[in-house]
């Protein structure tokens, strides 16, 4: 069932000569129960996209529908839970008071609210800190509180912007499971993060944004089936990679050499043969799974190639 439709969504900021598109004609559709990762470098438009979906900012052009309702309308906003980065929480209140307040706007009975708050506290593992003032919380605790609030308020979609930033690794790994469970309950989860490993572990699909454009829409299951050959090059070989890059346009320069996706029938043997014929000495080679970082590097290389 469709939870989110984004059609040529565009958001521009500034005016006159300084007017710039933070998000440019971005289109995709997401189903309920999906975990959609959103990755990209700083300024790629991740937060802008999430804020548009949450109804925090208006669109300049295009359209966004949440659960069949135009984003930004009262009914659409009531369907979305949003954990912003950095989270905005009142330091004067305790975590429990804040959760109760936000939950009161989504429930119709005090008993229902109590059970919702209890569920959210367990979800974000806040039981020890619930009665403390938010002013005393660490960054990680505030992030967990933001996750709990987003979960309690988002009936159709939960939008999480860098929500596991600053959370300790042990709790973060348990929270990842809980976020998966949230998706299992029929909610759409949108997860923007620079932590590519987390996105890979959680997401079923990943959107790569680059300079406001949707650069790739990747099925994570497909991604892990792909392989990459990593070549370590030494000395003068490092400066002779031009011909290899020309021969394998999807290859990406890494700090130690080249990473070449083994697609379209390319094998390690063929690659090493190409290196020999180009007189590029390979110090070491290995085959590994393709990861999101490769996609980002490839997008960066493409962008660099386009720039005159």
């Amino acid at each position, binding site marked *: 069932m*469709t939870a989110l*439709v984004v*059609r040529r969504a565009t958001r521009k900021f500034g005016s006159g000569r300084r007017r710039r598109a933070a998000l440019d004609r971005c289109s995709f559709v997401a189903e309920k129960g999906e975990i959609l990762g959103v990755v990209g470098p700083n300024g790629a438009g991740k937060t802008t996209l999430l804020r548009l979906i*949450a*109804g*925090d*900012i*208006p*669109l*300049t052009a*295009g*359209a*966004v*529908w949440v659960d*069949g309702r*135009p*984003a*930004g*309308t*009262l009914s659409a*906003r*009531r369907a979305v839970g*949003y954990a*912003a980065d950095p989270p*905005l*929480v*009142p*330091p*004067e*209140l305790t975590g429990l*008071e804040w959760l*109760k*307040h*936000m939950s*009161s*706007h989504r*429930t*119709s*009975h*005090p008993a229902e*609210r109590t059970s919702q708050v209890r569920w959210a506290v367990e979800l974000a593992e806040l039981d020890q800190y619930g009665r403390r003032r938010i002013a005393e919380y660490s960054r990680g605790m505030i992030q967990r509180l933001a996750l709990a609030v987003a979960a309690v*308020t988002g009936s159709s979609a939960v939008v999480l912007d860098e929500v596991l930033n600053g959370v300790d690794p042990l709790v973060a790994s348990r929270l990842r499971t809980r976020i998966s469970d949230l998706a299992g309950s029929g909610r759409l989860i949108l997860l923007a993060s620079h932590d590519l490993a987390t996105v890979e572990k959680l997401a079923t699909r990943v959107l790569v944004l680059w300079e406001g454009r949707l650069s790739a829409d990747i099925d994570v299951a497909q991604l892990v089936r792909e392989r990459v050959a990593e070549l370590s090059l030494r000395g003068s070989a490092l400066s002779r990679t031009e011909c290899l890059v020309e021969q394998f346009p999807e290859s990406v320069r890494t700090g130690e050499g080249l990473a070449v996706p083994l697609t379209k029938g390319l094998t390690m043997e063929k690659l090493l043969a190409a290196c020999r014929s180009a007189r590029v000495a390979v110090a070491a080679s290995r085959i590994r799974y393709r990861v999101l970082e490769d996609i980002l590097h490839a997008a960066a290389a493409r962008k660099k190639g386009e720039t005159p």
Partner: protein
Amino acid sequence: MMSGIALAFKSEVVLAALLVLRHRAPRLAGLLVLTMMGLVLLNGTGTDTSEDGSRTVLLVSGVLASVAGSRLLAPGAALTCAYRVAAPWWLVPSGRLVGASTVTLPLVAFGAVILIPHPTASTPFLLGAGFIGYYAATMSVTLAITPVVGASSAAVLGFLTAWFGIATPSTMQALLEKWPVFQGPAVLLWNTLPLHWRAASWIRDGCGIDILVLGVWTVAGMVGAAWTVAATHRSHRPPRGLAT
């Protein structure tokens, strides 16, 4: 059984009370009022006339309303959550106004009891309506301007109007006699705004227009607060009717 709207309204009331109680500025203002009243009570040096007493209570009321009101939609979490809760437009401003009143209006009532010890039989209604009307108008206008100018500036503006609003329009006219360019607008402003002198005039004369002006400003302030909360997020609506 409590409906969704009632539960949401109650939670806004509680949130407002907590925001006022747990911030140092309204707490300090409340403490100063209590200290002042305590000194009056100890020395037995109340005001000479009922009018002086009511003016002092109005001043206290204006200061408390502006300081407490400036916390309710302060930029940050208080303002953001007012939008994110996605409630009907009137719910957040009215709930927060009621919540802050439950904390600060008792102080105004305490001041009234101490400073106006012997009201005549006809005045309790005039006093009550005057204090509450002025308090509500000041607070709701402060609520409306806070998202635009910020919490500190809104509190300062409210504080200044509580003090300078004591002057009547005729006083302003006399003061600005040498500057006719400013005289007209200032007098018009003084006649329009929900200032201290208007509440004092209601308490003294019981003229309906005074309380009506305060009431209109209370409603306008709440509408303005709802508008300013949504203003930063106002969207141009996409066309409806897409088959999803």
